């Protein structure tokens, strides 16, 4: 009886959360600008990333979408000449605040890159890399558990479970990218940033990764940069359109692809430029 109550309570809370999740803002960009040396690459971007949703950033090459993405976990810090203005918050906390440890931030906001970049280590070590650095597993068994569940979540477990000790670089491109996603998941981030994760993959591998993104949405908040309109339409709930360093328009994906407010968005989506 007692158990029943607890479970129903949990369900109720869960339902409520699901219902409300559309409104929860996970990350918020407020007048974000980025300079590379003297050149300004991004101007006054105001963009919200919502919890447990996939936000797609689209726009022609050089429009600043990758730049914005890299601001979200401060990867721009690794570029000497880059300077970021404005404010970005994660759970209402300014991530560019002096008190924020960038290393901790990147553990909470993980990243998957355009080109699959597994380390020249075994598949197991690739996934175990993050947890080991952050001390997430005390014993070997815990680590095995993390590796297995991460690989399962990244939908690659069945393909690699028999060869965990082989080098990650020996996998195919699509498998490598899913390995990189598993590697990102392994540190249990809250947000996963994906920078054109499928641009180096063939259509079948792309379909696998897209499917995976949709599944991951249950547990993670995802921001994805893509060049493919179809991909944005398929995987995302919200879409933001960038052009020449400005955020042109942002809204629900359905609406963006049917009745965009801005003419530039319409032109880009229908293939008139880009």
């Amino acid at each position, binding site marked *: 009886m007692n158990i029943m109550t607890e479970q129903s309570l949990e369900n109720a809370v869960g339902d409520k959360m699901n219902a409300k999740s559309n409104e929860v803002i996970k990350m918020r960009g407020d007048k974000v600008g980025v300079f590379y040396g003297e050149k300004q690459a991004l101007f006054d971007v105001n963009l919200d990333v919502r919890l447990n949703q996939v936000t797609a950033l689209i726009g022609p090459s050089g429009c600043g979408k990758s730049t914005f993405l890299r601001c979200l*976990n401060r*990867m721009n810090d690794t570029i000497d000449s880059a300077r970021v203005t404005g404010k970005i918050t994660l759970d209402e906390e300014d991530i560019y605040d002096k008190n924020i440890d960038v290393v901790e931030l990147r553990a909470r906001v993980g990243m998957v890159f355009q080109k699959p970049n597994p*380390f*020249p280590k075994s598949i197991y070590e690739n996934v175990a890399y*993050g947890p080991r650095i952050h001390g997430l597993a005390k014993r070997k068994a815990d680590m095995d558990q993390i590796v297995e569940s991460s690989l399962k979540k990244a939908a690659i477990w069945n393909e690699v479970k028999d060869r965990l000790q082989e080098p990650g*670089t020996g996998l195919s491109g699509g498998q490598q990218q899913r390995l990189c996603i598993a590697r990102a998941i392994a540190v249990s981030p809250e947000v996963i940033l994906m920078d054109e994760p499928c641009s180096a993959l063939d259509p079948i591998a792309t379909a696998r990764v897209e499917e995976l993104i949709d599944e991951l949405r249950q547990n993670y908040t995802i921001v994805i940069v893509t060049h493919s309109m179809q991909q944005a339409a398929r995987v995302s709930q919200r879409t933001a359109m960038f052009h020449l360093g400005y955020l042109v328009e942002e809204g629900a994906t359905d609406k963006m692809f049917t009745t965009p407010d801005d003419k530039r968005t319409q032109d880009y989506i229908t293939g008139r430029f880009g």
Partner: protein
Amino acid sequence: MSSLLVLAIVVAIGLVAFFIGRQRAAAQDNGKVKPHSRAHYHGWWAFLLAVLPALLLLAVWAVGSSVYLDRNIHAALPERTVNSKVASEALDVSLVKSLARGLRKLDAGTLAALPASFAELQPLLAAKGVALASDTQDYMIPIAVEANKVQDRLGLFGAVVILALSIAGAFYALRQIAPRSRARNNVERLMLWGLLAASTIAILTTVGIVLSMLFQTITFFESVSPMNFFFGTVWDPRFAAAGSGGSQGQFGLIPLLAGTLYIAAVALLVAVPVGLMSAVYMAEYATPRVRSVVKPALELLAGIPTIVYGIFAVVTLGPFLRDLSAALTGGSPFIQGQSIFTAGLVMGVMLIPVVSSLSDDIITAVPRAMRDGSLGLGATRSETIKRVILPAALPGIVGAILLTASRAIGETMIVVLAAGVAANLTINPFEAMTTITVKIVNQLTGDLEFNSPQTLVAFALGLTLFALTLVMNIVALYIVRKYREQYE
């Protein structure tokens, strides 16, 4: 005719052929047929055909005629007897040749009335600035005169043949010129052979070096057994007394080999950590400003001649360490003025820029994607370096270290000055020891009979050293190659 003049004429013929060829090819291009090769390729082809075969013949002719001349002189010399005045047959021939060269300086009048005795001839030659050995004999004068005549005839005949060949080559190439003839492919095929020849030179030189050392080494092993050489623990070659054969000396390689490896090991212990850390700093942390100052400064260090390091060691560091150790014990110094430690330390400093420069290039070559991947997972910079970049760069770094080790083993001057020339066998790093290279220099300098084991041992040592560094380089290349593409 002198070879230089022939060479100049051949090149001139080639140039003329080049211009004519280019001109003819250009003139043939009337726009009806698309020419296969552009005009200058026809020019180059004519140049090459005019010059290359002629030059080859010139080289063969020069070698051939000098051999022929030697044999001629040889045959003309009187039979050697016990009381011949000249020490050896080879000396005989070379005396005649230098006499012949001297005679060329004289004018025609003097030559016509040449004195028959060397005593009279010598002042005439000396007046022209030709100094000759005093054991030149009278009977050599007619032989030398005859040799000069033969040489003139050979030279003239050769020049005519070579120039004819050159002109024939030029004509052949010029006749070939047609819109569809493939001068471009011909020129490129020849270039290919030229490149091949260039790359062969290094290999052939190596083979030559090995062979020359090998034969001397074999001679050495005829008087000293390989067992005594490779496993002997005492190095005491003595001096080669005349006629004694000199084989009573002891030629144990072990003390020298141990010294070589010991000093190299100390040097690497200094150079590898410091060099690697400076490479990591420069590749990963230094701002472009700092890097642009520090890297050239470090590389400047690599340009200092090793003898300067040696002087520093023997004048400054050695005495300093000795005094320091004396002060520490309050009495007798436990570090000698010349020691393994001093030599290793200074050599290590010398090798720092080598390690750091090579490793810096290797670390910078690790793809940025690796760094991003690790940083994106929340690793710090130093974690990224430790766990991703260094492992990825490791094969290259190992290769760099082995190359550095080869240099440490081959180093001579620092050791001579800083560690001395005493061939001890010790494990105390504060005592003097010496290396293979030092002993090679030691055995080859001074007035030693060349055929004695005391001298020949240098070749055996050299060959050992060669084998040692060769093996290390092969291992280095193997490691680098095996793991190179791992992160691509």
